[in-house]
């Protein structure tokens, strides 16, 4: 995906408060061992139809993020090497589907996977690493919150 593409993360209303998006909106679901945070590519013909497929109740809010911005995200309080990438994800029903992929020191982050398998820096809590990653994306996402009215 090109650096100048925008992607949208659809948001439950409970995740937006006082103009900020919660880190909770950027979880990798453990029950399906999620390997990426789902987003939709805004600059596609099917974007509007895809939003309606994902969310039945309108209006729905979404965070609009530039791909380049996501790729350049830096976690502030960690010594570990955290990298973010955005890639298209094949999905027959949702053509605009894409995902934010995260690696920690070169290893892919997977929802619900034991952290023992990841080589995080000694003295760093695994929970704190996850919190920092989610917070970093949430703060970036909070810069542009839009509403889709259907």
């Amino acid at each position, binding site marked *: 995906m090109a650096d100048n593409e925008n992607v949208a993360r659809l948001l*439950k209303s*409970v*995740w937006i*408060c*006082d103009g*900020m998006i*919660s*880190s*909770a909106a950027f*979880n990798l*679901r*453990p*029950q399906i061992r999620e390997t990426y945070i789902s987003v939709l590519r805004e600059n596609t013909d099917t974007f509007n139809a895809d939003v309606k497929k994902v969310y039945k109740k309108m209006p729905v809010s979404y965070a609009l993020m530039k791909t380049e911005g996501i790729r350049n995200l830096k976690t*502030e*309080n960690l010594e570990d090497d955290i990298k973010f990438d955005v890639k298209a994800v094949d999905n027959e029903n949702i053509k605009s589907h894409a995902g934010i992929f995260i690696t920690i020191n070169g290893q892919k982050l997977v929802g619900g996977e034991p952290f023992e398998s990841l080589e995080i820096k000694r003295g760093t*809590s695994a*929970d*704190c690493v996850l*919190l*920092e990653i*989610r*917070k970093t994306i*949430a*703060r970036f996402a*909070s810069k542009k919150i839009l509403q889709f009215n259907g």
Partner: protein
Amino acid sequence: MVEMVIRLEDESLLAPLRRVIKSLSGIAEVLVRKEVKVKAKGEVYTRQLARINELAELEKDWDDNGALPIEKKVIKNLKQLLEKSEDSDLREWVIFPDINGTILLENKSGDATISVGNTEFSFVSKKIKGSNEKIKTDSLLKVIRKING
């Protein structure tokens, strides 16, 4: 009719003293008035309590993706924190639900997040090194105050 007021510092004296006084002749009635100190709660307390109660009502699958309802113990932990805190402690914090039944406290400046669970809390912040700690209202409040500066 004459009234006498006795102010007790030790509440345990109340019952025996009442018995003694009542046993005396000429006592018409013994009335007890108890002073209750009520800590004044402000706008932040009211707002945050309403938010906690709102999140406590979330049902299973509230995110349409299998999210768990917020654990009762987590709600209790949050309410205990609220009771102990001053309005200034939580004024700049927003409370969010997390999909695993825990709660996130996030400050509005965006530089700190605290995850509150049943028995532990973990946090990251620009100001102090993040860690996991056992849930104790005092230690959670201490972390919040440090982050607030």
